[in-house]
């Protein structure tokens, strides 16, 4: 059980999501970096698909009335325990009864994941415990956590082992790798040059539905397109020419031309882009993208 003493900017219950409902207009959603949540789950002895918290930019203060076992992965946030000690990242944390864990601002990146032994015991909706915030269902009452909330955990199974995780290494500043989109041909040379040649910045109005970019407008033939199915990572260009990278909770269909799609291996990087951060794009061939896997987390015994 956790008690929310103070809520963060947007603390959402997440698991791997609910793929398979796209034909009903429901996006798969789920943790923005499912491998990072899975690694946190493994460090507390959970099934990789257990529900944890996805914490964005500024975190909550949580109290563990009966104590607990937890783990944090993803972007580093300022984080202190009741004792005043800093909470470690990427390792099993054992919390005493009544202890609090207080997360502040993200120091680098945008999102972290908190796994709790047993996993958060919110009801499954359409097969998943993930919050789908735009539609207001799943997770804890379909919304972000608020001060005063109390969330029970499922009972933990098996013994607790103290583990440490090593995230995959990656170049933070490398351009996002994309494959060209189905409507790339609608863009003229100037539009393509703007998109691939100039840096963009993540606009403040970005969320799990989409990352809005600021920078050079990408010009294109202003055609009315029939709606098509779209996926997280698809880069849509609305009439104003400012690209939107669709996020995890974005719509499943869209009517704007899609110039490119972020490859699956780079989606975890998308999860860490902060408002104001620079973004560049580079194309890679489809076959090369298929061969490229997201880096693997390695987990070892602590001590």
């Amino acid at each position, binding site marked *: 059980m956790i008690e929310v003493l103070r809520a963060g900017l947007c603390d959402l219950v997440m698991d791997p999501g609910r793929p*398979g*409902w796209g034909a*009903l*207009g429901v996006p798969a959603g789920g943790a923005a970096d499912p491998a990072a949540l899975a690694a946190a789950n493994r460090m507390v002895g959970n099934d990789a698909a257990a529900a944890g918290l996805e914490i964005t930019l500024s975190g909550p203060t949580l109290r563990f009335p009966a104590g607990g076992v937890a783990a944090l992965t993803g972007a580093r946030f300022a984080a202190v325990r009741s004792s005043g000690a800093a909470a470690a990242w990427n390792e099993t944390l054992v919390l005493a009864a009544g202890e609090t864990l207080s997360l502040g601002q993200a120091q680098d990146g945008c999102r972290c994941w908190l796994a709790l032994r047993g996993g958060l015991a919110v009801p499954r909706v359409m097969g998943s415990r993930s919050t789908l915030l735009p*539609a207001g269902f799943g997770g804890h009452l379909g919304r972000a956590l608020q001060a005063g909330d109390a969330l029970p955990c499922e009972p933990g199974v098996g013994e607790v082992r103290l583990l440490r995780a090593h995230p995959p290494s990656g170049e933070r500043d490398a351009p996002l790798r994309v494959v060209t989109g189905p409507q790339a041909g609608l863009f003229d040379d100037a539009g393509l040059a703007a998109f691939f040649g100039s840096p963009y910045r993540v606009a403040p109005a970005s969320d799990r539905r989409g990352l809005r970019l600021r920078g050079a407008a990408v010009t294109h033939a202003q055609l009315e397109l029939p*709606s098509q199915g779209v*996926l997280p990572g698809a880069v849509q260009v609305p009439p104003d020419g400012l690209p939107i990278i669709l996020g995890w909770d974005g719509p*499943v269909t869209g009517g704007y031309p899609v110039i490119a799609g972020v490859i*699956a291996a780079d989606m975890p990087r998308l999860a860490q882009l902060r408002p104001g951060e620079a973004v560049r794009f580079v194309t890679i061939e489809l076959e090369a993208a298929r061969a490229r*896997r997201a880096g693997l987390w390695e987990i070892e015994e602590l001590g």
Partner: protein
Amino acid sequence: MGERGLRVATGDATLARYAGLISRNFPEIEEVIPADDSLLLVLRRGEAVSADLCAALAAPPAAAPLMSGILHEIAVEYGGAAGPDLPALAERAGMDASAFIQRHAAVEYTVAFLGFQPGFPYLHGLPDALHAPRRASPRVRVAAGSVAIGGAYGGIYPAGGPGGWHIIGRTAAVLFDPARDAPALLMPGDRVRFVPR
């Protein structure tokens, strides 16, 4: 659409293709999302298109959609506070409001696909005279159950929220409820008739 999304142009055979692919249960496909005149095939992570799937996509589609095509009657309160755009749309179409309602309720619509919000149906079959380009500036809040027109499509907003379509009425029908066994009231291939009340 990234390396996991395969857009297949399907034209008029979208629903037949959709039903055909769903019934075959290809192991490499995570899901199939129907849209206007295309399908998006979402491949499972690390999977490629199999020879079987290639062959199925190359074969001619089934003659008729293999879908139930249930007919739903949707009771609508037209105009007034429930349908603030009805007077302007009727004027645009060169008819009075009651004639507009009659035309809107006289035809049978087909659910082409769902999108935008969970359970939001894009309806084919809107009479040409009732087509209207989307609003220049979207409303910040449209009520749940709003019956709408966007371009050549009819639609119904399952939940409240921002929206750029013209609102001509409202229904009390619950279009989407994630707790139901069948969360979406209307499914691709279903038919819809609006009944003025």
